[in-house]
């Protein structure tokens, strides 16, 4: 990550200009984010009952949350999922970016668009498509099973997470690939020419010029992928009504659990507490990754 260089801008420049520039964003941000989150924190101190309405319970919701097995079930699942899916997806994205950048592909432009396309597809549409593809009765997998004589079910409780992983990777690899590709494109040509003069092989170029250049984007993509994956919601939510016996419960991921609590169980205070705890947890993890990423940038 580029460190903010303290530029020699003269301090006597009115410091308020910066604030003014930031103000539109800042004010909207307060309205759209700060106030709701404060309100959310406030709600989390109350318990909602169908009979009896709202009542103040202090930190009870949080205490209850930390004893809630359904919460842990979802949280652990999402952490494990992230730990597996994110590295795989980012590895694919890096390899693709390198491949596209190498200009050794036939039809570079075609591949670039095609790999990005899945990102443009809304979740409802992509889940429908994948629901079909992975269906064992009338879907492609069904046909494969018949052809190979297997009985593989992508939506059995043991395999559902893997299937969701396939769907998420499908949707986001292209997006991450673009970020890496942009970073590669910005490498100054002089570095390549210098390497050519030194007689470097392609592998050496990749290792010594390209990969280091990706470090910054890697940190960024890792952080944002972790944040996004921790909030996994769309796929389990839509799949639960499409396929049966998939093992997807109403508390399958923390976000889904919060949604169920708020909208089906009328327990908005508890849902708010859950969401805030997950947010805090995500921020901590993102911060840790950020620190490690920056450290790596330092000891090159």
């Amino acid at each position: 990550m580029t460190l903010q260089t303290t530029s020699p801008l003269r301090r006597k420049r009115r410091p308020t200009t910066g604030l003014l520039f930031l103000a539109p964003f800042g004010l909207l941000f307060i309205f759209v984010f700060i106030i709701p989150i404060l309100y959310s924190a406030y709600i989390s101190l109350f318990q909602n009952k169908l009979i009896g309405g709202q009542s103040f319970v202090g930190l009870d919701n949080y205490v209850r949350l930390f004893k809630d097995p359904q919460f842990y079930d979802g949280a652990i699942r999402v952490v494990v999922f992230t730990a597996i899916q994110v590295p795989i997806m980012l590895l694919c994205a890096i390899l693709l970016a390198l491949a596209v950048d190498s200009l050794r592909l036939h039809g570079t432009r075609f591949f670039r668009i095609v790999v990005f396309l899945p990102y443009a597809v809304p979740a409802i549409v992509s889940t429908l498509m994948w629901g079909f593809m992975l269906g064992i009765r009338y879907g492609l997998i069904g046909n494969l099973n018949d052809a190979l004589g297997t009985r593989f079910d992508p939506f059995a409780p043991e395999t559902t997470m893997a299937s969701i992983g396939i769907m998420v990777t499908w949707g986001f690899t292209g997006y991450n690939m673009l970020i890496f590709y942009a970073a590669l494109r910005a490498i100054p040509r002089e570095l390549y020419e210098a390497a050519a003069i030194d007689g470097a092989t392609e592998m050496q170029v990749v290792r010594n010029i390209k990969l280091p250049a990706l470090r910054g984007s890697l940190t960024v993509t890792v952080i944002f992928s972790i944040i996004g994956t921790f909030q996994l919601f769309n796929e389990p939510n839509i799949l639960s009504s499409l396929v049966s016996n998939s093992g997807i419960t109403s508390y399958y991921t923390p976000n889904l659990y919060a949604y169920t609590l708020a909208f089906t169980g009328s327990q908005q205070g508890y849902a708010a507490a859950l969401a805030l705890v997950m947010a805090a947890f995500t921020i901590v993890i993102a911060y840790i990754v950020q620190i490690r990423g920056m450290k790596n940038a330092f000891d090159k």
Partner: protein
Amino acid sequence: MRKTRIAAVATALTAVIALAGCSGSADEAPTAGAIPTDEPITLTVWSWDGTVEAAVPGFEKKYPNITVDVVNAGSSTDEYTALDNAIQAGSGVPDIAMFEYFVLPFFAIPGKLTDLSVYGADELGKDYVEAAWGEVNIDGAPYALPSDYGPAAMFYNQKVLAEAGVEEPPATWDEFYEAAKKVRALGGDHYITNDSADIFLLLSLIWESGGRPFQVEGTDVKIDFTDEGTARAVEYWQRMLDEDLINTKITGWSDDWNRGLNDGTLATQLIGGWFTSTLPERAPDAAGDFRIAELPQWEEGERSGAENGGSAMAIPADAPNKDAAYAFLEYFTHGEGLQARIDEGAFVPTLSFLEDEAFLASTNEFFGDQAYNEVLASASKNVGTGWQYPPFFSWARSSYEDLSAPLYNSGEGTLAELLETWRERMTEYGNEQGFAVS
């Protein structure tokens, strides 16, 4: 109706409403006013039932100053969430909203719906199927008017059953069991029906068997799955599951389900009568093969029935134009607007409709030449009374789906155990939510 009881409950309800502190005018006793005829009024009606729209032109002609806006604000749960949000925010509450029968207590008990007896709705009971009327009455007062109905019936694919060697539709559950074995013997993916933890299916069987697992009085809820009627249905279904006679891998309303009905691998469906309008689009290849019969009975010659779905329309307590709203509500669920809806294919629980000769004689080539409405009308009248849903049924339903996974996925445990765990969960949740559940 026992009037003193109504008074007592009304007082209790008012106290509860006051305590609940729900927003809105629920604390004023609603009075029926005359509908103003000079000022323009726009009524907002939330309904995912497409037939309501058909009643609008006639109503607008009768009341030229009223415009009715029918909006699909979501199906089922989506709409209930939206309504709850709107009530909480105090804005955007519609004049009339659609509710499936099981969710009425959820809204009625905390006072979110208008008690319609002030408009004289309690007089309308005799015009409706008894069981339907029973469900819109919460603690003795009508909070909604029944709008459509789903008497549980058996839709069967005659051709597939004949192939399996079942010439007559099963009339008792024992016959159904035998038929199931024969259908299974056809091989492949043939099953007599599917069930992927469909709580409404199970409850309709329990209902028909005379079981009444939920008893609700005000905020007192008693849950018991061990009464005779319930136990009988549960044991039967357990046996069907154990012997692999039910397809547990297909969920109702999914694409797979449509295809299963279409290609005949699902031979029957035990489902509500309203299925007549949507089955033809889901199983076009099976046109002419399906027939309808009443649910198999427990004892030969018995005539008992159950309900599987159906909905009612109610006026939220915070609705902006209640008097005009009631006029339209009565019009399209009870009055002159009914015919237009029936022409669109609605199946309504009014006795006059169910006894209408033209209706009873109508046929649809999808069902061959069967006068299927006779079956459905008869089934409607046979629906057992006294059924109640607990006030937190929406939550309970999602909890049931979570709990049923081990049994339906891997055969762990039994249906009885599942129901017992469910009962425990519901007791815990209900008590936490301020009800007295035992």
